[in-house]
């Protein structure tokens, strides 16, 4: 059966098979472990028993090739808890499958998937933290976003948010006391808190580090300092207008339009909204501008980590990002928090006079290649830089897949995975561009991937500008006709992802028939990418730990949401 499953993929008949997955064959593979079948908008869901999670997932991973656990969404219903494992494949993103694991409300215990997929470790901790599902055999089932002393699970149904969190001083006196693993009279290692306030953590990240001399013996990211209840806020907003401003605030380092697209894609998918082609081109152009701005920031801050001061490269990168932000300001009216996408299109057309706007973009695109050459002269061809970055922070492709790593980080390890191409949306499949990969797997390769992706984004933008310039005036439809109040059918569920600046940015939504989502779960690429940090930096020097963290390019607003 597994061979049948992989046949179409091997022969590249993707366009023939609708959705790409033969769910009946998969159901046969799992046999009577499948209790029930559901249909989600993106994929079919198999309902399984809570004590057979590992069994089912390892069968699917080994025999059906589902090597990418994209996300774990947990939620509470009136009568049960439910964990959904969103599976897909690195080789073929269109093949998706949801594994639904219901548990009773009285005893919400479910088997952990972390022995099968390492990425489940953090995702299940989050599900435990926010929703309250207990995962059996989980190696480290602690809270991840909220403090250890938090009482209750905020996304659970009977959580009372007006109840004050009374924590005695004694209980929270030194939350790190137990984790001072390295310290002690007769210990050879030293425990070091890097962050939450540290020049190199790119926000409020806390790394609990055990050092052996200058070498990193163990590193454990402690996140949640920037948790702003984004999921819950989205659940309190109406689909049509009130949710769209929030995505801008996840990856706030100028990747706003990419994030908005994640919500637009899932909501349009659920409510079956078409987007006019003209708006798709504008979206594609705007999103790629955001990608350039975001990669420029990543480039600058990574060099900041390696070089040590606010040096020339950081400022140059900020200047180039500034140019992009000016263009985006012309387009959207905002520099960072755009709120430009609408369900079914974009909020307004390109600014007038159009020629001037296109001229600005073309000037920027013309200036870009020599600037990138400058960066190569300054950075990638510098011998000291190479000795710092080549072969440090190595991430093995298999480890990357195991931890659900996506985006430039995965592509730097040679994982050829880009949702823009593998599960096309917008106008990407009609444009001519390449997915960039590097095989190095080290800090240097990740930097090169970002720099080359900027070139590709510029190619996409150029084609979009060409298209927009010649677009007939009477066909410039920026929004399709969308009802003022959206109420998707009850129990519609969908998980959709887009290629954000840092990787696969996915959203799981469930409708309960009202105008607000019943569950809104964000799959943040930074969250998964950060979880692999210890695999990359253990055994390296502390300087390389910092550089590796920089090359992961995590935005804590997106990690903590």
């Amino acid at each position, binding site marked *: 059966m597994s061979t049948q499953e992989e046949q179409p993929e091997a022969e590249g008949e993707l366009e023939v098979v609708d959705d790409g997955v033969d769910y009946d064959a998969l159901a046969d593979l799992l046999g009577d472990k499948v209790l029930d079948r559901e249909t989600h908008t993106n994929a079919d869901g198999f309902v399984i028993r809570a004590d057979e999670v590992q069994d089912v997932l390892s069968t699917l991973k080994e025999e059906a090739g589902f090597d990418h656990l994209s996300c774990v969404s947990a939620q509470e219903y009136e009568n049960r808890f439910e964990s959904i494992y969103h599976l897909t494949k690195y080789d073929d993103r269109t093949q998706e499958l949801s594994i639904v694991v219901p548990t009773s409300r009285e005893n919400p215990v479910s088997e952990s998937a972390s022995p099968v997929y390492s990425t489940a470790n953090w995702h299940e901790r989050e599900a435990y933290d926010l929703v309250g599902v207990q995962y059996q055999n989980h190696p480290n089932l602690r809270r991840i976003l909220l403090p250890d002393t938090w009482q209750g699970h905020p996304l659970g149904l009977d959580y009372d948010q007006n109840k004050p969190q009374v924590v005695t001083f004694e209980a929270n006196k030194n939350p790190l006391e137990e984790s001072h693993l390295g310290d002690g009279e007769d210990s050879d290692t030293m425990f*070091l808190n890097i962050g939450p306030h540290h020049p190199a953590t790119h926000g409020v990240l806390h790394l609990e580090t055990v050092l052996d001399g200058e070498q990193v013996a163990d590193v454990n990211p402690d996140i949640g300092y920037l948790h702003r209840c984004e999921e819950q806020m989205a659940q309190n907003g109406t689909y049509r207008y009130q949710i769209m401003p929030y995505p801008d605030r996840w990856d706030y380092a100028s990747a706003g339009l990419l994030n908005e697209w994640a919500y637009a894609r899932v909501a349009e998918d659920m409510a079956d909204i078409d987007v006019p082609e003209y708006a798709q081109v504008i979206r594609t152009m705007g999103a790629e501008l955001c990608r350039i701005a975001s990669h420029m920031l990543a480039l600058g801050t990574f060099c900041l*980590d390696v070089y040590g001061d606010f040096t020339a490269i950081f400022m140059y990168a900020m200047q180039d990002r500034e140019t992009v932000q000016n263009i985006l300001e012309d387009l959207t009216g905002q520099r960072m928090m755009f709120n430009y996408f609408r369900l079914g299109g974009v909020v307004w057309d390109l600014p007038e006079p159009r020629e001037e706007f296109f001229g600005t973009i073309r000037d920027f695109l013309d200036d870009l290649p020599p600037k990138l050459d400058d960066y190569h002269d300054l950075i990638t061809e510098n011998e000291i830089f190479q000795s*710092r970055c080549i072969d440090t922070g190595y991430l093995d492709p298999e480890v990357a897949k195991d931890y659900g790593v996506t985006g430039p980080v995965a592509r730097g390890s040679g994982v050829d995975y880009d949702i823009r191409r593998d599960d096309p949306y917008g106008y990407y499949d009609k444009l001519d561009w390449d997915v960039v990969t590097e095989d190095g797997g080290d800090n240097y390769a990740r930097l090169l991937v970002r720099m080359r992706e900027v070139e590709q984004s510029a190619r996409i933008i150029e084609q979009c500008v060409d298209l927009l310039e010649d677009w007939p005036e009477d066909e410039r439809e920026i929004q399709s006709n969308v009802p003022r109040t959206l109420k998707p059918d009850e129990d519609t569920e969908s998980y959709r992802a887009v290629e954000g600046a840092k990787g696969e940015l996915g959203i799981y939504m469930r409708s309960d028939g009202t105008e607000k989502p019943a569950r809104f779960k964000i799959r943040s690429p930074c969250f998964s990418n950060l979880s692999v940090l210890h695999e990359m930096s253990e055994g390296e020097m502390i300087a390389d730990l910092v550089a590796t963290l920089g090359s992961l390019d995590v935005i804590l607003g997106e990690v903590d949401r």
Partner: protein
Amino acid sequence: MSTPLPDFITNLIGIGGPLGDYLGAFLGAFLVANFMLITTALAGPWAKRKITAAFTDRIAVNRVGPFGLLIIVADAVRLLSKELVVPEGVDRPAWDLAPIVMAASALLGFAVIPMGSIFGINLQLADPETGLVYVFAVASIASLGLVMGGYASNNKFSLLGGLRAVAQNLAYEIPLVVTAASVVLFTGTLQMSAIVDVQVNTTLAVIGGVRIPAWFAFVNPFAFVLFVAANVAEVGRNPFDTPEAPTEIVAGYQTEYSSVYFVLFYLGEFIHIFLGGAIIATLFLGGPDGPVLPGFVWFNIKIWAVFLFTQWLRSAVPRVRIDQLIEIGWKGMLVLSFANLVLTAVIVGVMNV
């Protein structure tokens, strides 16, 4: 010849005997130290910002006073009026002494630097026969300040920074001194003024009627490059700024210092850069030698050139990792500096025969 500064002051105040000598020496030292402090004040809050801004396409300070120069006053007031935070558990006398040791050790070095003469006054405070050894001896007291500050701060980042600083200074002090020794082989003396005289009075070549003096940077460029590189490591600037390494260990040994103590550390570092520049100028660039302008002006041009060089490195060169730094020091610089010493010895020997 011009009068040395202490003698000039003694004559000026007209008190004879040991008291006059003492006063002259004291006031002379006071003047030189203050001059260096002013230079540092210009370099730290103002010139550094302007230079970095020029490298990074920015404008930097331009609001307070002409060219933003009054930022120096503003910054001094700001830094001195900050609270001196003494963290719990610091090792008190050592923690307080570290910044003083840092700043003082660098200032002491200027006692023997021939800074050239202006208006007939020779601005060299003292000219002992062991001048060169003295400079290296007092300059390396700074390492003690670093390790005291790092260890006494009771902070893990400071400890790491202090350890790094010591490892680095050990690794680079030796090539520095050995390279300087190759200059001594040429001059046959450790006296700073004599080293300058040898460079000024020897002619390397005459090109088109212009006499090129035998500055050791021209005579032995290899030693010059080695010395400049070792000096950058010695003063802890990019690419060798691992002891501070802001993105790795916050600020290294000076993490816990604030207010006046921080100012002293900061001063110490900048005076060290200038002292490094002064040693380079004396050993390799003919000290205060130069055409037209007075010697003292040339001396300042040279130490500022070295300062500019360190700022250029800071803006453009990545930092090496601590293990790479130690490797470069022990496996590269040390070997090269000894090779240079042997080569110089052979050449000098052949020339003298």
